[in-house]
């Protein structure tokens, strides 16, 4: 219907951005009202890749449903798995061995780095620079190779299981990560030369997609989006899990509230993740990597919730159990959905190019929004 109307009653152009559009990073559909180049309204329409993952999980056992969550936010699949495993462990009161915890944190931080690198490249594409994408993939590929060697897959690893991790780390893991750290440190300045310092990029980012801290809170934004508006919200700090309380890292807070602040938060988080990895890499404790668990997991009757910090923000897993083999109901709180809901607030009155840039800094992963 909208396609037929074409113009709003006020004579503004109504344009369907997506579901097939280069800058929506997937099958997101935005209906935008344009007055000249100015975006008057922007309305996201979801549902193009809804796979009813939550419903699917209700028919899967507590070991099985975890692998499905890798397919939600596929860029931080480890962290999703970690969130689910944490909930199951919380319900069954399983204590994960120290080695398992450290491996989990290492993997989660590597995933976060990979995710931020992909975001950085994709943001470059959004603002019209093609080269950063390949430069980001050069480093990301190294992370993926490390993942492949230890976990067996590059993107949807299903490595973290209730009780710990599926295997022990590969013997080469530590050396490879060390090589990666050296490589990354030599390349991170290039990112600043190529993109951050670039005057065109700064002009495209500064003052664009403004959202104040209160607004961001009221929209339920989390992660780098909220931190860029000056609100502390890192789950790794406020409710540490898997031993995050033992590592030294900074929670990055920026007060710019605009796209540039969000950009800076992620770029600084890359360095923080690197420092976490450096702290843990040589101190992986000996011992078991997985707690002894029963072959068949049965959660006690009740409601369980736990949350983790993914690369995009707070990811919550809420399980209602009736005591059976499968969960009665599962609800995922995905960061992308809430962050997307703030999009129309951020882009009202901005230019069409700003809409794309803002969407880029929100770091949307559509399967995460549209489960």
């Amino acid at each position, binding site marked *: 219907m909208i396609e037929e109307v074409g113009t709003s009653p006020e004579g503004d152009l109504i344009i369907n951005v997506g579901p097939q559009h280069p800058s929506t990073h997937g099958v997101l559909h935005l209906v935008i009202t344009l007055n000249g180049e100015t975006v008057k309204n922007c309305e996201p329409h979801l549902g193009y890749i809804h796979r009813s993952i939550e419903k699917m999980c209700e028919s899967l056992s507590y070991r099985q449903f975890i692998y499905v969550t890798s397919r939600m936010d596929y860029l931080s699949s480890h962290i999703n798995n970690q969130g689910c495993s944490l909930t199951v462990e919380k319900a069954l009161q399983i204590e994960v061995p120290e080695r398992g915890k450290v491996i989990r944190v290492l993997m989660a931080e590597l995933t976060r780095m990979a995710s931020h690198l992909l975001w950085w490249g994709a943001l470059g594409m959004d603002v*019209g620079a093609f*080269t950063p994408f*390949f430069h980001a993939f050069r480093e990301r590929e190294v992370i993926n190779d490390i993942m492949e060697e230890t976990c067996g897959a590059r993107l949807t690893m299903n490595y973290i299981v209730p009780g710990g991790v599926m295997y022990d780390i590969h013997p080469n893991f530590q050396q490879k990560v060390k090589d990666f750290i050296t490589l990354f440190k030599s390349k991170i300045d290039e990112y600043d030369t190529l993109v951050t310092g670039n005057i*065109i990029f700064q002009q495209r980012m500064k003052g664009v997609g403004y959202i104040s801290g209160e607004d961001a809170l009221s929209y339920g934004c989390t992660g780098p989006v909220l931190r860029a508006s000056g609100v502390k919200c890192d789950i790794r700090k406020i409710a540490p899990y898997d031993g995050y309380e033992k590592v030294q890292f900074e929670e990055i807070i920026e007060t710019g509230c605009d796209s540039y602040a969000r950009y800076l938060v992620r770029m600084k988080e890359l360095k923080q993740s690197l420092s976490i990895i450096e702290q843990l890499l040589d101190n992986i404790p000996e011992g078991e990597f997985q707690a002894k668990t029963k072959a068949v997991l049965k959660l006690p009757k009740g409601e369980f919730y736990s949350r983790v910090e993914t690369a995009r923000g707070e990811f919550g897993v809420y399980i209602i159990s009736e005591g059976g083999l499968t969960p009665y109901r599962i609800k995922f709180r995905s960061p992308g959905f809430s962050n997307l809901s703030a999009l129309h607030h951020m882009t009202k009155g901005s*230019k069409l190019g700003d809409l794309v840039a803002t969407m880029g800094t929100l770091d949307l992963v559509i399967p995460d929004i549209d489960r």
Partner: protein
Amino acid sequence: MFSLENLTHIIDHALNNTFNATIAMLIEMVIVGICAITLFAVLGLVLVFMERKVSAYMQIRLGPNRVGYKGLAQTAADTLKLVIKEGFTPDNADKFLFNLAPFLVMIIAMMLLAPIAFTKGLQMWDLNIGVLYLSAVSSVSVIGILMAGWASNNKYSLIGAMRSGAQIVSYELSAGLAVLTMIVFTGSLQISTIIASQQDGWWIFKGHIPAIISFVIFIIAVTAETNRAPFDMAEAESELTAGFHTEYSGMRFALFFLAEYVNIFIVCAIAATIYFGGWMPFHISHSIPFADLFNKGMDFIPGVLWFTGKTFALIFLIMWFRWTFPRLRIDQLLNLEWKYLLPIGMFNLLLATAIAILGWYF
């Protein structure tokens, strides 16, 4: 110095002796037309391949290396694919204008090839207003884009066309001013005279400060005029999918694509002609000792090589821009023109005039 003038004269005489004057002229026109079309196609193929290789190396990739020797036949294969692909016309499109637009763009690109001097004597049309002709005809190419954007009956195309209209019309001013600055030095609009005036050194060296400023402005303005990144607002792919040629496919898309590259070649050829002496070898002023010896030595390299070398170096520069910079926003783009390039260009024109009057150039 080796010259192609004799060759063209021989052909001219032979034709005039065989046929009467009118038919000889018509035959010459046909020959020139065929040459222009061939040049158009060859330039398109070469430049597309060059772009792909340049982008690949800047993006730490290998680029096309499968079709033909080191991938040289890649663009030919792509063109073949585009030729045999179905040309698709959307519903409710203005079919006449939709089909006309790519040809208009192509014809204009070919017309612009006319006054380019490839080497001494190898020039299709050495008209006495050469530079003015170039800027006049290139101002028509915006119509092709507007036509394509309007006739597609697609809102992305329409926005793209609007953007490119605003952009090309504004940046034409700066490009024109930059050229004008150099015309103050050369004192002529004719391409051959402009080149001849650089016998004792290229204008970029002889004209020093104003010439360099004008060159920078010219390169920025023509990058915008040819719709290249970082000014590719008309086809900003992350915003408008493909802008004005969203609905084009097959051969008609290929024409837009080739015309874009030929336009790049033309603007770079103009820059090479005005600032770097076209086919003129690197000469130095006679006041410097051993200058004659040096100039003679430089003359051994044929003019075609000098011309293509300079032009392709400038094309490389424009490609370098594209694969390094992010895209500007439309209002920043217009700000850059009206707040920076145009005032600087005008000031520069005054400076150049003053220098020309005082004779402070070499």
